[in-house]
């Protein structure tokens, strides 16, 4: 499944867990603890930006590193679980 303009699926949200002091992704009957990179990617998934735009923004933040493949891989993994969907679909 191609994610042109990724966004969090309905009922999926990011939250800062104050007890564990970590960012978590909450969804129906589950939670994922996220690392910094995953948070940075998911925060940009607004259903408007394309995957390329997200990768470009992150690349700027990480001093020009080519992160497109990493972003695509991360979103594919989360997308397989139905937590991120394509806004156009």
């Amino acid at each position: 499944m191609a994610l042109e303009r990724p966004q969090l699926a309905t009922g999926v949200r990011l939250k800062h867990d104050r007890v564990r002091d970590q960012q978590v992704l909450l969804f129906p009957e589950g939670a994922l603890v996220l690392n910094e990179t995953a948070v940075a990617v998911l925060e940009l998934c607004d259903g408007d930006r394309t995957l390329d735009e997200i990768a470009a923004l992150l690349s700027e933040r990480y001093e020009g590193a080519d992160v497109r493949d990493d972003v695509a891989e991360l979103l594919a993994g989360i997308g397989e679980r139905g937590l991120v969907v394509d806004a156009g679909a």
Partner: protein
Amino acid sequence: MPAPDPLLLIAELTYRCPLHCPYCSNPTDIGADRYRDELPAADWQRVFREAADLGVLQLALTGGEPMARKEIVELVSTSTEAGLYSTLVTSALPFPRRRVEALHAAGLDHVQISFQHSDPALSDEIGGTIAFERKVKAARLARELDFPLTVNVVLHRGNIDAVESIIEMAVDLGARRLELANTQYHGWATLNREALMPTRAQLERGEEAVGRARERLGPRLEILWVLPDYYEDVPKPCMGGWARDAILVQPNGDALPCQGAASIPGFAIDNVRDRPLREIWLESEMFNAFRGTGWMGEPCRSCPLGRQEEDFGGCRCQALALTGDAAATDPVCHLSPHHDVVVAARREAEEPQPAAPPRPFVYRALETPPARV
């Protein structure tokens, strides 16, 4: 061992329920006096806040039928304020539009609706109430309001052959998740084990149907398939391990590590009216009884499979029910000296059953003792 931070609060708001499912995981003495005195809404609200402070992320509003509590909207508001991810686990009786819209406005995150079968008449027969059409309407309303929807069907001998049409039903209703949980033999299900336990061939066909559907549907529908313990040779980590992830609070405020823990004698049960949730989680005799691995005897203590931290010895309530000792290894494990009990139950399920009349269910009811209908 130190207590980990809990993730889940299971709030059994009431044991009142319009359905009479013969496999209900509620205790069989739900009609007992001690469950009549339901925890007031203000106490639930305090418990939700205490749970969030303790690290709980997920709240399951369940029962019985949680919609039977008139304060359900206020309870959801408090859950939202506390930052919890809330799921309403409902029979969808009742599921009135205005109330559900109010739940949506209050921040309810997710709706889970139970069905008993994909065939309306059989669904109603298993649930012991005319309910199917109302459940369909409720599911459509939930989707109209853009709730993520989970359809839950407890599987058993009488509906497992319909797995394919159950999956179609879930797709048609717009569900994102389908829980196909094979009956586990706790609560009311122990009274109906003979009538409920599927054959191995039925299970295998069901599992194949699930595999084909997953292939076809991909992430559109997440299908959970939970095997019944009785057909496994190593136990599951019941509740993710005793007092490790979850806290369950009964309608009267009794706090337990799982649905069946009250059946285990010898440990004091704490009530949320008397002690803060944190104290109960950390200090309660019941929660500490089987936490971690230190309580284990043989064969768990020297587990040759290295599964101590994987299955945590399986289910304490099942160990008690089948061996008389809650600290015994779950007899589902092939290394348990009592494993033959499980094997015998499997063998019994393979024996031909009379075509008609079918074995009668003992339906869940608040009256005690349970009546065979």
